């Protein structure tokens, strides 16, 4: 290989070089800002994670799999996955192979190193002995073809997004469109530019063939320079608009992954991790289809992708509107390919509201509550009490108080199993704190947590049983109860059945299980309720279940959605549940139960109601036989 020009410079490299330097400086400054905005202990945690081999390896693996290969999108839809990984991985490989070329064939580059890997074909000509380069020529053309196929798919996606498994896509902003069109034009222009020089600098199946086919046009070297200028300009425009478009997600995600792996949580609503998440949002719109509010068209602009856009624009009115409306079901977080936590981001926005009046619970006297819950009833099933008998404290919670059937049947199951239990809030208790936490009033929630902790720690219980997933989530996340096991009744019933403390008579009823948001996505409990139901009858699945289960619409998360506006969401969730025509709908959350029961065409039950109906104490059955 030999250099074509003595200077190794042409003016057309300027748009690219300026754009690239701008982007690199902008991203470095942004990265330093975000790291500086982290609270001190988080920052320490982050730096520590970077020098710990285990997290470092995980960081590198995640960056490779998520940023380049886009594994999450592959799992969602093959075509969508291919489109993204072909552009990202293909472009990455073009850059890598470009650098390899430069290292192999040139020396003493100096400032030329900035643009040689990109415009190598223009500056370096082919000589007699190019066999060594032919593999590289082939690779360059191959990856260019890969990227081009991705671009073609991207163009198709703009017209027919359903082919890619997406019903709705994001409405791009003006700058997004500028970025989009410049990104689309980069690679066809590269192909054109390299085809012009294919007879001078060599090429492979793509560029060389093109040069032969259109020899009239492409071997006229007077046209060469405009093509290279256009290629460089497209790159320059893309880099210059990148920080202000959705393509900012490319550099930000590389920062977000190590931050997440370091175990950092959102503290400030706009700074640090929250900022990284907002800028890591690629505006892909996967969350739009996922959002349970999407059944009403008016709510589409209130999905997480638009929240991120408004936070970038500092549009306070819209930020408040969007964050207050959300049901906090967490589905957008579950499906997000880059890991933007839509629910936590919104709670953080709520937490910066200014209130002139704040509730205060210091007057609540816990002594009376402790007394009330400290009388354990021993179960009437004496034959099984030989099994290690732990004291269970049953906290029904506010919502269960409105669905007394759950409380009654749970207590009945406890006594059938011969458990010694006590009710913590028989005559009304203190709220677990989750609802006020979701409203963003953390200080109040903390007070409630402290009050409840005091009661529970003084009750003498070994196990805290909850029938409400809303309570369950905050008990697991914000309470520290040393020596006490926190358990949801789905898990507890599963344990009772598998340890043989209650016997189930199975019938042929078809049950479908609705995963409550806070239990499934919130706490990761999916298997136990299914196991329980499978032992009681035939378990069928909803069209969308587990991680993708649809919120019932009754959530306490939403502050502004009125009663009438939720109906469509509930009906949509019900339609999803009955897709396999079950006899009964079963859930494990008092709020879901109450909401579904309003509009359902078939019986809706809590899992405790089902089990209480079909179970008998283990030994009783033995006696009957």
């Amino acid at each position: 290989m030999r250099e074509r020009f003595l200077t190794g410079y042409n003016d057309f490299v300027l748009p690219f070089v300026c754009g690239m330097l701008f982007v690199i400086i902008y991203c470095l400054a942004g990265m330093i800002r975000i790291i500086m905005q982290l609270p001190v202990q988080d920052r320490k945690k982050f730096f520590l994670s970077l020098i710990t081999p285990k997290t470092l390896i995980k960081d590198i693996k995640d960056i490779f799999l998520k940023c380049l290969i886009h594994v999450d999108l592959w799992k969602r839809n093959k075509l969508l996955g291919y489109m993204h990984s072909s552009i990202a991985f293909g472009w990455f490989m073009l850059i890598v192979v470009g650098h390899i070329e430069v290292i192999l064939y040139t020396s003493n580059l100096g400032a030329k190193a900035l643009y040689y890997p990109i415009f190598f074909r223009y500056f370096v000509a082919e000589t007699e002995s190019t066999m060594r380069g032919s593999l590289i020529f082939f690779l360059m053309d191959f990856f260019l073809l890969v990227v081009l196929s991705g671009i073609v798919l991207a163009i198709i996606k703009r017209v027919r997004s359903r082919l890619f498994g997406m019903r709705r896509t994001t409405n791009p902003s003006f700058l997004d469109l500028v970025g989009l069109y410049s990104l689309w034009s980069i690679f066809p222009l590269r192909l054109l530019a390299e085809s012009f020089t294919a007879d001078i600098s060599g090429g492979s199946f793509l560029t060389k063939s093109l040069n032969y086919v259109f020899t009239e046009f492409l071997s006229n070297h007077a046209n060469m320079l405009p093509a290279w200028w256009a290629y460089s300009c497209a790159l320059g425009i893309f880099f210059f608009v990148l920080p202000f478009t959705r393509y900012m997600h490319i550099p930000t995600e590389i920062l977000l992954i190590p931050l997440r792996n370091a175990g950092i949580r959102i503290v400030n609503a706009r700074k640090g991790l929250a900022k990284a998440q907002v800028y890591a949002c690629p505006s892909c719109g996967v969350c739009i289809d996922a959002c349970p509010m999407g059944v009403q068209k008016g709510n589409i602009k209130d999905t997480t992708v638009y929240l991120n856009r408004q936070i970038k624009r500092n549009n306070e009115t819209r930020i408040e509107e969007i964050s207050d409306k959300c049901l906090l079901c967490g589905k957008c977080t579950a499906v997000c390919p880059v890991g933007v936590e839509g629910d936590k981001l919104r709670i953080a926005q709520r937490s910066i509201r200014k209130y002139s009046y704040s509730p205060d619970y210091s007057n609540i006297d816990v002594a009376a509550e402790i007394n009330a819950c400290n009388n354990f009833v021993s179960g009437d099933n004496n034959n099984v009490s030989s099994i290690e008998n732990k004291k269970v404290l049953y906290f029904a919670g506010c919502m269960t108080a409105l669905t007394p059937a759950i409380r009654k049947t749970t207590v009945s199951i406890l006594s059938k199993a011969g458990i010694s239990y006590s009710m913590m809030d028989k005559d009304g208790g203190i709220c677990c704190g989750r609802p006020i936490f979701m409203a963003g009033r953390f200080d109040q929630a903390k007070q409630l947590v402290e009050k409840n902790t005091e009661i529970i720690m003084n009750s003498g219980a070994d196990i805290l049983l909850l029938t409400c997933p809303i309570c369950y989530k905050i008990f697991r996340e914000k309470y520290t109860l040393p020596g006490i096991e926190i358990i949801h009744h789905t898990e507890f019933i599963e344990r009772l059945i598998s340890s043989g403390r209650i016997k189930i008579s199975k019938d042929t009823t078809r049950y479908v299980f609705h995963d409550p948001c806070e239990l499934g996505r919130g706490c990761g409990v999916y298997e136990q309720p299914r196991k329980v139901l499978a032992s009681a009858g035939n378990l069928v699945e909803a069209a969308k279940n587990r991680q993708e289960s649809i919120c019932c619409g009754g959530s306490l998360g939403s502050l502004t959605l009125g009663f009438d506006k939720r109906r469509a969401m509930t009906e949509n969730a019900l339609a999803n549940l009955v897709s396999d025509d079950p006899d009964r709908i079963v859930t494990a959350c008092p709020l879901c139960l109450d909401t579904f029961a309003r509009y359902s065409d078939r019986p809706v039950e809590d899992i405790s109601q089902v089990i209480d109906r079909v179970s008998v104490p283990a030994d009783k059955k033995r006696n009957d036989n």
Partner: protein
Amino acid sequence: MDFGFRISPSSAVNLDNVDLEKFEELHRIEPDVYKCMACGSCSATCPAARFSGMSLRKVILALQRGKEKEALAMMKNCMLCGKCTMVCPRGINTRHLILSICRIYKEETK
């Protein structure tokens, strides 16, 4: 002299002496506040009633009559649990109403 009973003081509210500016502001944000028919479902279910005598029905009435102090005293232990929203027969979004009250009204510090 204590007879074990007495004439209760007048509970009449002179609305001319009451500054309802804040209530009007509340009504602008929460038009539903006039939807309340004072059925008391919210009060019956409220877990904070045991502690601070919270009753949203009474809070709305008190605010309408300019008795902010009494209203806010009741609100002291509201835990925003949302039971009132679930039982309200008029479909009032009581949680948002309570949050709006917290935004508009201020506790007088004396």
